[in-house]
Each structure stands twice: as structure tokens, then as C-alpha cells.
């Protein structure tokens, strides 16, 4: 999932900003697509607010995502000079998750249930008691493990108004889009045949490539008429 080495695999997202009048415009692609003055300075504070905070075994969350330095998942200090670079905002999207092996959890839970049954002198435990025991055991095991860490590189080209996210995993994309919007207050629109068309429109084009009426009239091309296939 790296932008820095090997072959590149990434999803593209178009950055859109909502104006004061409520209009949505593409950031970076149009003549008026520049970011509002002071946008990056203001967003840096929010960026620090959404920097990755490593998981703690005593916290209830089993998973958390946040920003880190691109290419360096352990650096969550996000120094400005490593984030904003010559027209790019470079970040790592880090997700930490507690992964307790199922067999380990089941064994430890069975032991804990046995001990608890002996302590209270009952054969059967209520559903609530079992849930509480599971919570206690889970926290105990988390203290003996380290969370799994996954980081995906992200680079926002400010001139192009384009975010390249080096993953195609749907869950990672959804979480990233959510965090990006919370951090920068800008919407991300995933690239698709339809959304790309509006960015390709040339001034000398005889037809508007994103003309809604033309797209509405499109039906899939059929090479072989029905019955002949």
C-alpha cells in the first residue's frame, strides 16, 4: 500500500468543497478551484486533532483509525514539513485493531467461566455474566498482545484537486473518506466513469462530456442481439 516503492495501486477521489452559498465545486480543477485562503493552516489544527492515537487495552474500542506520516506509521506527530510538501498533502491512514486469536480467547474464557462458577457455586451463568467475563478476559488478553497496525499512503494533489489513496479495499476507503471529511471539511467523490467525465470536459468540445441528458439516454452496448448469443 505504498506510494514510495514498488508498483502503484490506488483509488482516486475528487475533492469537492462546499461554498458559503451551498454550491459544491471541484477543488483544484477549475479556475475558481483554489482552496480558500488559510485553508491549510486551519486544517492543520484539525489534522493534529485526528492524528492516530494508539489503542489502549483498557479502552473499549477494538479498532481506531487516524493520520500518521506517509511511509512512517509510527510517526503520529505529523510535523507540518512532512505533511505539506510542494503542492501535496501527504499522509498515512493508519488503522489499529485488536486481533485476539479465536482459540486463545475461547480457552481463556472457558478457564475464567470455570473459576467463576466455582466462586459463585452455580452451574449456569446468566447471559450478562458471560458477557462481562468475556469483556474482562478480552482486556486481559489485549494487555499481553499488541494491536495489528495497517497504514495506507494517501497523497492529495492540491493543484489537481485529487486524492490518491493507495488501497482498493472498500472498508479502508470508506473509513478514510469519513476521516478526510471530518479533518478537512471537504467531500471526496470516488472516481468512476461518470464522475471522471465532468473533469475531462474541454472548452472546445462539441458536446459536454458530462451532459446529463446524454448520459441519461445511454444504454449498454449490445454486441450480439438477444437470441443470437
Amino acid at each position, binding site marked *: 500500500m505504498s506510494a514510495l516503492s514498488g508498483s502503484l495501486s490506488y483509488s482516486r477521489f475528487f475533492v469537492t468543497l462546499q461554498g458559503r452559498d451551498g454550491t459544491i465545486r471541484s477543488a483544484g480543477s477549475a479556475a475558481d478551484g483554489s482552496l480558500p485562503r488559510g485553508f491549510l493552516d486551519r486544517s492543520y489544527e484539525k489534522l493534529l486533532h485526528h492524528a492516530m492515537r494508539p489503542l489502549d487495552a483498557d479502552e473499549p474500542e477494538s479498532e481506531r483509525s487516524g493520520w500518521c506520516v506517509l511511509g512512517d506509521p509510527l510517526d503520529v506527530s505529523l510535523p507540518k514539513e512532512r505533511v505539506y510538501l510542494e503542492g501535496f498533502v501527504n499522509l498515512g491512514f493508519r488503522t489499529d485493531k485488536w486481533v485476539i486469536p479465536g482459540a486463545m480467547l475461547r480457552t481463556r474464557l472457558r478457564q475464567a467461566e470455570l473459576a467463576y462458577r466455582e466462586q459463585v457455586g452455580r452451574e449456569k451463568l446468566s447471559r450478562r455474566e458471560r458477557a462481562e467475563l468475556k469483556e474482562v478476559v478480552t482486556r486481559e488478553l489485549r494487555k499481553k498482545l499488541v494491536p495489528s497496525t495497517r497504514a495506507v499512503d494517501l497523497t492529495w494533489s492540491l493543484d489537481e484537486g485529487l486524492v490518491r489513496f493507495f488501497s482498493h479495499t472498500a472498508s479502508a476507503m470508506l473509513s478514510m473518506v469519513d476521516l478526510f471529511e471530518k479533518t478537512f471539511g471537504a467531500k471526496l467523490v470516488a472516481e468512476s466513469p461518470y464522475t471522471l*467525465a465532468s473533469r475531462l470536459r474541454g472548452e472546445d468540445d*462539441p458536446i459536454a462530456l458530462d451532459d446529463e441528458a446524454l448520459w441519461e439516454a445511454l444504454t449498454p452496448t449490445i454486441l450480439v442481439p438477444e437470441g443470437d448469443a
Partner: protein
Amino acid sequence: MQLADRIEKRRFVGRELLLWLWMESELFDGTLHTEEHGAFGFWLEKQLVLSAESESTSIKAAAPGLGREAKEALLRGQLPERFAVRISKDDEETSLVLTGDTLALRALKLATVLDKKEEAVIGDLVDELAGRTRGRKKKKAESEEDEETPFYERMSKAAEVEALLGTLYRDFLRLRLDARWDAVVVPTMRQWAAGEDVDADAYRAAKRGKSTKGAKGAKAAKGTRK
């Protein structure tokens, strides 16, 4: 219609782009052309996946689009889902996997990376034939060099590839949203898929013909199709 619905319902256009690129690449002997980029090499390689609903055909070959299997899949109603493609421009070679539904780029090997890898492969073979075992060391060195490739150069080259593909997509849309799609492109596609001889020059001239603005002409053309 919500944006999300418009996006989902129109994903087929990306697959049709792949189909058009595949056909043009074969008709024009692996050389495509755009106004901005001039002529460049563009051909399918290694893998081609076609699908329609639950049916899927996956072809792995040096030139996966050339065989009958691929065309037969088209004739069964399947469209290209993704293919690996090699682009050769200004003595630089780039390879990538292009996905129709999302137009996402995967496994994009930029010119610098490709050059190094191919050198390494040739070097490894020579070493192997000579009984030497330097291959692994060379690969390690290559990977270190890869990591040092400046980030901006990689992004800049990726943007160049995207720009080239964007121009191809724009040229495709100019046809797809025009009456020439049904009048010229689709009949040619049918001939090509059926394995019939296609007059590439005539096709080139016809697709460059005067644009008929709007879908009205397209509908009229549809009405005359058998």
C-alpha cells in the same frame, strides 16, 4: 437521481471504454493516437478478465485479447472487466491493470521501475546460465533503489499516465455520446468480435467523420440497426 445512483448505473461505460481500447489496439496494430500525445504503443498483455453477471472468463496469455476465447466471451455477452496493458511512449514503457467499473489503476509499474526490473531479469538469466548466483543480491539492490526513487517523480509519472488515459477516455466519450457510436463503432465491433475482416482505415476515417451532436442522432441510428 442521486449522485451515487448515477455513478452505479453508469459503470458499464468504463467496461465499454476497455472494449473500445482493446478493439482499437488490435485494429491499429498496437498503436493508438491522441491529439495531445501523438502516437504511442498500447497493447493488452498477460491478463484479460471478461464478465457478465455470474459468468466470467479469465485469460492469461502473452497477448490475451488476440485469441478466439476472448472474442467468444464477447459474443456471449461478456464485457471486459479489467486487463493488463503495456503503454510504450517516448522510449518509456509503463504497464498497469485497468479496471472498467472504477477506472482504477492497479499494479502501475512506472518506466523507471520497469526498466530496472527488466535489466534485473536479463542479468539474472545471464548469471544463471554462467552458473553464478548473483540474482538475489541484484534484486535486493534494485528494491533499495526503488525506495529511493523520489516521491515526486513517481507521482509526476503516475499523473502522466493518468493524463494519457484521461485523453483516451475523453476521445472515447466523444464517440460514445455521439451518433457515430451506433453508426460506426458498434458495427465495427461486431465484425471484429465475429472474427471478420475489418477495414481499419475505413473505420478510422468514419469515426473521424463529422460529429452528430446529441443523443437524437444516436437514437435514429439505433432505429435503423438490425
